[in-house]
């Protein structure tokens, strides 16, 4: 059994189901790439898993605890969120905090860690994402790539059991995606468990150990990167990969 299991997750915003019973199983150390066309429900899935959106049905098992969506207590949500981290497409750094404060906020405020200890961790995390010269910069003083790396530093600072990434590079100029993907690649190599919604097929191909293809609110196909990219079984997967490959070229990261 995996560390995190999702069964039959449903979500309807009122105009039809956006998630039509998605199952997902994550083992410790997995790097799972979620692919799929726009509007297929990838973001919604991640957001429901972290309770940023209230799913209508389905269950979640995390660390041996079982939860039913729609019936999770506030207290449990808060507790579960402390074991996870989220990296947003548009970074969502705290705009009134410096890079360092962005990283330490979750430690000092949410986890009551002493300031000095948190600052030490903050420095270490920012060093790790290559921002040792940007501790005291405010988000508006950083490039998109730098902001997203701060966001990743913020995510790993709390030592989460899993990090959700929602298209972490798609708001970035092409020349800045590389620096963010490189940091993520490093995290994967360090054994971090990651669930990554992405359009970067190169990243999915080379870094993830499992690929999920979603369409229309359901999982169409899943398998290892070799299976999905080398020998996709579903015609829809094949069509999607053909289109994406034509758009931006598979493996441009390599």
């Amino acid at each position, binding site marked *: 059994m995996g560390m995190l299991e999702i069964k039959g997750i449903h979500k309807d915003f009122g105009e039809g189901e956006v998630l039509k019973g998605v199952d997902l199983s994550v083992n410790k150390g997995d790097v799972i790439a979620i692919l799929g066309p726009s509007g297929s429900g990838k973001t919604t899935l991640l957001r429901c898993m972290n309770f*940023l959106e209230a799913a209508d049905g389905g269950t979640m098992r995390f660390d041996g605890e079982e939860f039913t969506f729609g019936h999770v207590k506030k207290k449990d949500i808060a507790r579960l969120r402390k074991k996870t*981290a989220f990296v947003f497409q548009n970074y969502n750094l705290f705009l009134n905090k410096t890079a360092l404060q962005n990283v330490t906020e979750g430690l000092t405020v949410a986890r009551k860690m002493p300031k000095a200890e948190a600052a030490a961790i903050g420095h270490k995390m920012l060093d790790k994402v290559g921002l040792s010269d940007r501790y005291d910069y*405010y988000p508006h003083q950083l490039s998109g790539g730098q902001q997203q790396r701060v966001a990743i530093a913020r995510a790993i600072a709390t030592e989460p059991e899993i990090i959700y990434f929602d298209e972490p590079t798609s708001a970035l100029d092409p020349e800045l995606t590389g620096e963010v993907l490189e940091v993520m690649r490093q995290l994967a190599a360090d054994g971090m468990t990651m669930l990554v919604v992405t359009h970067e097929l190169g990243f999915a191909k080379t870094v993830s150990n499992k690929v999920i293809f979603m369409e229309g609110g359901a999982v169409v196909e899943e398998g290892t990167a070799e299976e999905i990219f080398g020998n996709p079984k579903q015609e829809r997967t094949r069509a999607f990969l053909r289109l994406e490959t034509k758009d931006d070229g598979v493996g441009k990261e390599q």
Partner: protein
Amino acid sequence: MLFYGIFCCSPPFYPENIDRKVTDMSERTLHILTDSFWKILVPGLKVTLPLTAVAFAMALVIAIFVALIQFANVKVLKQIARVYIWIIRGTPLIVQLYLVFYGISGLGYLINPFVCAAFVLAVNEGAYCAETMRAALEAVPAGQMEAGYCAGMKYHQIIRRIVLPQAMRTAFPPLSNSLLSMMKDTSLVASITVAEMFMAAQRIVARTYEPLLVYTEVALMYLVFSTVLTWLQHLGEKRLNRYRGVKKAAVR
């Protein structure tokens, strides 16, 4: 007072060929101006400014509280907040002042006019500032709240440390505007017997029959106060801008 002394005590030493009448008139004008300067400035410093400061501080507290109630969508309290804003914004300040001051006095209770003025001004301004604050809170991107939750923070922690500071920055210029308006509106409390700057001017006019002169003088006094407040606003904005990329186009 010093000028006053000089002008009163020194005997006229002008040569006979200068028109005495003109000299008398300008002397009298100067006398009234210097005499009233202090009589207007002192209540300005002792009443108008403290009243402004106290009432605005209370108004801010009310505004933040009322705005947060609406932002957090607290049932019942939210309706009460809307009714409060509706009533206050729908009635004139002067009527509110009369209603509270003469209303309470009429019931036979003694009420300190300054306290009453501060209270009414605060409640009045609080309603306007609450709307400013609500708009500013709503202008903070939803992602800030979500990022806070994902970092493990609680609602009140995110509000206090992330959302409110950003909203305050957005609200700062319009709030400064409100402060300026309120400082000028304190002139209305003369009508409930608070001896502030404008009442001082009215008294001098009643004595000297020089409305043009004295009201010009008090207008200039308000202008100076406003200018100082505006200057403080710019200082404040500069400080707050450190975390807000004030996006000024580098080129035109």
